């Protein structure tokens, strides 16, 4: 499958947006992990932002950044959301409520607990009637999302937004499923080259021969290994370097999603 990257969004520890993070990911400046600040998205008015679940704020932040750079209209673009854990805070709070004798579940919390809640809020905020797909592939959630998004773009010959996110669970779930930090990224993928294309991706699912591409920086490698959405980092690093390189992203059962990156415009 071949798709073109038109816009990128990024939010993670010490990674405050795609443009600000490019030199860090490219290894030009040293990476320093810092507490995450989720930027306010223009998609969310201040009063709604206060009530919004964290996964909603996070995905709107990276999604709107990627759409801005791609120059695309979110209202007419299908989306693929992928996450291992979804909104862990919401699920934890419901589990605590259900462990009490009263079992009184907050109705808003209940509808926020569905895995596609961020996709639902995105559609409302962007007034998009286009399809949303919400995926989970455990540690391979990013690779699975990239396959689905690329399959949509090529099979249906239309651009698609891939939004990957994961954040730590509160205890006690954190102890059984530790997720490092909070991380989200968005890629606008189109089936054909446009003026906004940054790189061409040739994507294949491979069973043999590949070893996962790691991050040379120890702190970024810890993030990559510890957060399913951050498994995207090797791909983002190649895009940041504006380099022609191939990366292997771990899928399941020893398989890899292998992505050959070819820059399409001059580095800026």
């Amino acid at each position, binding site marked *: 499958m071949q798709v073109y990257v038109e816009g990128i969004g990024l939010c993670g520890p010490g990674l405050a947006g795609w443009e600000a993070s490019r030199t860090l990911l490219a290894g030009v400046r040293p990476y320093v992990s810092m507490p995450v600040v989720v930027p306010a998205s223009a998609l969310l008015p201040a009063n709604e932002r206060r009530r919004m679940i964290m996964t909603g704020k996070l995905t709107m932040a990276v999604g709107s950044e990627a759409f801005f750079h791609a120059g695309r209209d979110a209202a007419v673009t299908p989306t693929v959301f992928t996450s291992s854990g979804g909104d862990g805070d919401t699920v934890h709070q419901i589990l605590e409520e259900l462990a009490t004798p009263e079992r009184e579940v907050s109705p808003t919390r*209940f509808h926020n607990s569905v895995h596609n809640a961020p996709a639902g809020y995105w559609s409302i905020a962007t007034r998009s009637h286009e399809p949303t797909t919400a995926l989970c592939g455990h540690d391979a959630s990013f690779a699975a999302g990239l396959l689905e998004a690329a399959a949509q773009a090529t099979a249906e010959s239309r651009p698609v937004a891939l939004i990957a996110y994961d954040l730590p669970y509160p205890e006690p779930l954190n102890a059984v499923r530790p997720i490092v930090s909070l991380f989200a990224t968005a890629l606008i993928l189109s089936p054909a080259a446009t003026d906004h294309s940054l790189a061409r991706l040739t994507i294949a699912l491979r069973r043999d021969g590949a070893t996962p591409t790691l991050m040379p920086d120890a702190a970024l490698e810890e993030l990559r290994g510890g957060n399913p959405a951050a498994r995207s980092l090797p791909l983002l690093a190649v895009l940041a370097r504006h380099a022609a390189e191939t990366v292997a992203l771990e899928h399941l059962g020893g398989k890899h999603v292998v992505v050959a990156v070819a820059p399409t415009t001059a580095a800026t």
Partner: protein
Amino acid sequence: MQPLVLSDFSIVSSLGAGREATLAALQAGRSGLVPCGFETVKLPTYVGEIAGLDEPVAGVACRNSRLARRALEQDGFAERVAQARAKYGPHRIGVFAGTSTSGILESELAYRRRNSPSGKLPPDFDYAKSHNTFSVAGFVAEHLGLDGPAVALSSACATTAKVFGAAARMIAAGLCDAAVVGGADTLCLTTLYGFHALNLLSTVPCRPFDRERDGISIGEAAGFALLEKPDARQAQDVNAVMLLGVGESNDAHHMSTPHPEGVGARLAMERALAAAGLAAEDIDYINLHGTATQAGDASEDIAVVGLFGVETPVSSTKGLTGHTLGAAGIVETIISSLSLLHGFWPGSANTKNLDTALRSRYVVETQNGRTDRVMSNSFGFGGSNCSLILGRAS
């Protein structure tokens, strides 16, 4: 889209295990809903519960995967997949499994058994194989020995309709030659108390399209289909069930309330028709989402009447199975496949007094009728909508 064949399918719900039991219940109009006695739940509601799912099965970590396993073992489905595995190779068969709540029941039980004072979960709690949304897809791939692309889709109550779209795209993109699609959703406290909190649980067996309808009854179910490109024989076989079209959309309206004019529902149905290259009059029967909430049935009725008029027979089978949430898409795709193969329109159990404000041609009693092409609707929280069109090979 290029039509694909459902070479085989399997189902377990409160109507029974397997195709024969499901068909018999549909034709007799026998509901699987009973007063809720699930776990320690004390709610005045009816459920479609499946017996024997609490018994441990070695190597299977949660009730949801035990339910998936039971479905895979019906009617020789696993053997049929094994034949496909031999034909294509395990790496060329994908798994696209949907669930809404996966094995969250195990987490609910584990939270009651948290260590005091540390608050830790009990050591036997297996997060990855129960709580994590991927657990059902991982289980299916492992149980069937499949090594193609595997992923879980979780778009609430539309999800096991959307698996057909995901599989069709992957096959079209050349990532696999065939796919096992479907999924499982078991009863759990999150959905029972959650829908109760939203005032959407009926205190009687749910009554789709009835003027007295007052909410859903929750059921549990699992179902799977083997989806592939038809071979020369299947392309000619009048008894082969084909997937002709998939239409997906979003309401962009509210997280848990459908668009009042059914805008997203209508778009999904229109897109399914466009994908199949069919017109509204080509559809012989529509299996509605029809959950028996006031708002849901009314908005779907507006969408259906707006697109199809008032002559196309429609019904909801949720009075029989209950609303099986994340499994509703595959359950009703299989019910639609059975009506297609056996030439009948399933009736609507528990619907006594049709709401005259709803204008669709609603089928209350099961009757024989033309079913060469049928549509199945699935809509969910987050505004997610998916319509599928099935037909006989021509």
